[in-house]
């Protein structure tokens, strides 16, 4: 009877270890804090109507960013715990974590950073920027977009659910290698959480990718031929094409893992004719393209930033496009380089080594193209450009170590070592994360209408770079010393401890960098009146269409859909003079909560799959189908915004903006410093308590 009701859940599944109690408590406290603030400020309705149910890709983009940043802190905490363990656990000392707990932490770290941080940032950017860049008011399917976003949130819920129910996450490494992830070697619920977390967020990614491909292919402004698209849009298109190709493969593989674990099939088991090597192949056929799904939009960002900040068109637009397409095609044929050491013959290894070496060509072309773009330009060094210059150095190190790993005989030595870990962190932090930081400092004025605090931004950059060197240069050396990855303990005689301690210190320095990024946003909001963008939405003298809109753009993006005649569409418009708009009626999609409902049921279903609660599985799936059907009969999903109303809105905005256009000191030298921010916050807190402001909330 109990099993019918709650499946495999028992009293022991509830939090009882220090970390599950701490985790559950912090979720509860966070929830209570948010609820209190929302209730006191009477913003529940605002949250639901203006944000959660919104189908506006700009708002969804910002929600992706917020979720991604939260997960960055969560994954970052994991790193600090891991590195502290490694710094302590030498010789007779065994650190403060058990082996299993340590393994769960690095598994969660990998999953969170790739799926819920990097992917979140990339999807957030694409959501916000791509429609603006191609001159669209909306996405091809707004519903699919909110559904994709909420499934992604469901994935986040599932990856953290083990804190509350079960108390263990997968201890298998981020890809849950078979047969280790099978029931025989990992009997607990941890791997099931892994499966279902990636399952629902993976479906969300597939939906999002289909949607963006349709949007980019079908909804571009008139005149914008494919070869007139901005490079960020090109990077996003290549990335989404790859995502559509490989994410269904992930979903299918996850189903097979689930069948093995729950139904006793033998796809990847050691016994019963299963083939773990098949799993290794399948997961990397998805896993390798996945990293390029992340990096291609970042390449697009850098192309935009270098061109804008050098005040020149990209040196060779076609090379950049061909380079990105080349990377995305080649990326599908290199997966075996992740396991040269599994024992394939020399011909197979050499072929995949060759393909991997070839992929370095289009990547190098992109870098050379940026150099050529800066050549004879007039370069400004605001923070976006700093992130770019930092990216190139770190990415070069990552690229060099990457080609080393692509040579099979060399890989036999470097594989699974900390050298490998340092390599992919160089590419993912240097490439993807710095790309995202570059992008957000570049587009922040577009998101908010005021620019970021430049001073604290620079400080954050230098802390990130210094912390990166302090952590990852020792990590490369540890790899050369024969330290394999994922060690929770090592002999004192190895002499590795000082290097691990350096890594931990580097982690703290990076943490300061992250704290400064938070401080930067805070300081920018505090000073937002002074930092106001007085350039009518074009603070960098931009080249692409997103800069032609107001900041932040109206919810319909463009009052009039622009006609495009060249690659740098806005640049040539500015040259030839802007036309006075003629207003027309606009059709916009209505907000909908369907995405939230479906994702909620999908999360219930996932939870029920993890714990074998049959009634809940059935009920949730029926609920999903019913929601779809009801939505299918709902023909009232759009509305028309009359031209007159748009004119009113635009005039009101213009009026509001002109009021701000006077006497604003926009000089970065007057930006608040970190110390001034601390002093301000201190004063604010004192004032808050003394004057009993809290009573008035």
């Amino acid at each position, binding site marked *: 009877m109990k099993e019918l009701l709650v499946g495999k859940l028992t009293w022991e599944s509830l939090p009882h270890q220090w970390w599950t109690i701490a985790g559950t408590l912090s979720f509860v406290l966070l929830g209570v804090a948010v609820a209190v603030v929302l209730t006191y400020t009477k913003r529940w309705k605002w949250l639901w109507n203006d944000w959660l149910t919104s189908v506006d890709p700009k708002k969804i983009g910002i929600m992706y960013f917020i979720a991604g940043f939260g997960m960055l802190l969560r994954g970052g905490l994991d790193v600090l715990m891991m590195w502290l363990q490694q710094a302590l656990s030498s010789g007779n000392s065994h650190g403060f974590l058990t082996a299993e707990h340590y393994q769960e932490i690095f598994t969660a770290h990998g999953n969170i950073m790739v799926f819920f941080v990097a992917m979140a940032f990339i999807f957030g950017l694409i959501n916000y920027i791509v429609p603006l860049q191609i001159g669209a008011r909306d996405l091809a399917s707004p519903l699919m977009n909110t559904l994709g976003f909420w499934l992604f949130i469901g994935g986040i819920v599932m990856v953290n659910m083990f804190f509350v129910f079960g108390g263990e996450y997968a201890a298998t490494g981020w890809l849950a290698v078979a047969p280790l992830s099978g029931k025989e070697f990992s009997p607990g619920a941890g791997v099931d959480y892994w499966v279902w977390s990636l399952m629902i967020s993976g479906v969300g990614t597939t939906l999002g990718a289909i949607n963006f491909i349709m949007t980019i292919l079908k909804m571009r402004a008139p005149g914008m031929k494919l070869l007139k698209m901005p490079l960020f849009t090109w990077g996003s298109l290549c990335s989404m094409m790859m995502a559509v190709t490989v994410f269904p493969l992930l979903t299918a593989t996850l189903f097979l893992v689930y069948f093995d674990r729950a139904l006793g099939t033998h796809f990847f088991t050691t016994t019963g004719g299963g083939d773990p090597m098949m799993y290794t192949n399948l997961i990397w056929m998805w896993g390798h393209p996945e990293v390029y799904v992340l990096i291609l939009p970042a390449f697009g960002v850098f192309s935009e930033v270098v061109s804008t900040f050098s005040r020149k068109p990209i040196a060779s637009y076609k090379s950049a496009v061909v380079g990105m397409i080349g990377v995305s095609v080649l990326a599908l044929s290199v997966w075996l380089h992740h396991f040269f*050491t599994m024992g394939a013959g020399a011909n197979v290894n050499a072929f995949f080594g060759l393909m991997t070496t070839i992929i370095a060509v289009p990547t190098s072309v992109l870098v050379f193209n940026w150099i050529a773009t*800066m050549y004879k330009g007039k370069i400004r060094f605001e923070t976006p450009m700093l992130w770019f210059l930092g990216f190139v150095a770190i990415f070069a190190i990552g690229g060099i170590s990457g080609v*080393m790993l692509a040579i099979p005989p060399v890989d036999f030595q470097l594989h699974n070592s900390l050298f490998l870990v340092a390599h992919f962190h160089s590419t993912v932090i240097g490439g993807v994360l710095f790309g995202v930081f570059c992008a957000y400092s570049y587009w922040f004025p577009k998101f908010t209408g005021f620019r970021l605090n430049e001073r604290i931004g620079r400080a954050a950059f230098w802390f990130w770079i210094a912390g990166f060197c302090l952590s990852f240069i020792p990590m490369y050396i540890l790899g050369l010393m024969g330290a394999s990855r994922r060690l929770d303990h090592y002999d004192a005689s*190895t002499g590795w401890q000082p290097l691990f301690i350096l890594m931990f210190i580097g982690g703290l320095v990076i943490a300061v960098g992250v704290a400064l990024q938070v401080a930067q946003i805070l300081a920018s909001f505090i000073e937002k009146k002074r930092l106001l963008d007085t350039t009518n939405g074009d603070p960098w003298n931009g080249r692409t269409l997103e800069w032609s809109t107001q900041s932040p753009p109206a919810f319909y993006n463009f009052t009039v859909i622009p006609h495009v005649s060249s690659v740098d569409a806005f640049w040539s418009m500015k040259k030839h003079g802007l036309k006075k708009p003629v207003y027309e009626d606009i059709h916009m999609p209505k907000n909908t909560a369907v995405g939230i409902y479906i994702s909620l049921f999908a999360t219930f279903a996932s939870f029920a799959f993890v714990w074998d609660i049959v009634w809940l599985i059935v009920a949730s799936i029926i609920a999903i189908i019913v929601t779809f059907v009801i939505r299918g009969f709902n023909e009232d999903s759009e509305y028309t915004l009359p031209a007159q109303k748009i004119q009113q809105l635009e005039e009101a905005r213009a009026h509001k903006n002109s009021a701000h256009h006077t006497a604003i000191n926009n000089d970065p030298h007057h930006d608040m410093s970190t110390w001034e921010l601390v002093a301000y916050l201190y004063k604010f807190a004192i004032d808050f308590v003394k004057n009993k402001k809290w009573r008035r909330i």
Partner: protein
Amino acid sequence: MAKKNKNWLRLRWVLVLFLTFLASLSLLLFYLVQGKNIALLHPRGYIAHQQYSLMLFVVAILLIIGIPALVTLYIVAWRYRESNPKTVMSEHKASKSLVATIWIVPTFFMIVISVVMWPATHKLAPQKSIASENKPLTIQVISLRWKWLFLYPEQGIATVNFIQLPINTPVEFEMTADEVPMSSFWIPNLGGQLYTMTSHVNRLNLMANTIGDYPGSTPEINGAGFTGMKFTARVSSDADFNQWVKKTSQSQNILDQNSYKELLKPSEANPVVLYSDFDGTLYDSVIMKYAGSAEGHSGH
């Protein structure tokens, strides 16, 4: 304008500070690793040596393209900065020859690397036996949860978490696994790693050329006890090796079905065990155990 120059002055100081930081970090690291076993840069075997030289070659080629590219990038960025009075803006587009160059240069270097990589991959294929005047030694390896079992079929002895190898003698490791997830066999001082898997035999050929004790491990995660799954590879002279074999064959321990069953039970950080004899059918039966289950299963 004056303010912008001042800004540049500040950036210069930050750069100087950062470069000083990098230099002192390098010095510190250099000091910290001195006298330590940097396994990949201190090869002690025939294969490790060749992998090491190949790695150096690849790094050299990559640095030949990478360093000038980076230096050019930073010089261009500096030279064409806005505050440089010499900077004149031009809507310059890349010439055809420049575009050709940015494609040809990396292509050329990658061809050089590929041309070296292809034959090297064949030459250093792990399954390829090493030519030598000395008679090769075969060691059968079974990875267990979480320890290494080594069988010396010609010598009739077996060991756990320890191997002794005669110097300058080719050694062929025939590797499989039993009741353990995929593991990897790696002695970094002697050469690269290879996975061990149930129902498969992977062959890894190595040859040591310096006497000494070298650490071995599984860098592939295979469960809770993975960190402690370590062994020592002792390289000795022929005479010492023979003496060790003789001594080992006088051990009290015998690896029969019962003691193997004990070994199959999961254990962490296992001590070294030496066996004077082992069941000759053991290795084949471990492989057949999984092959059989596949056929057995299809009959269900």
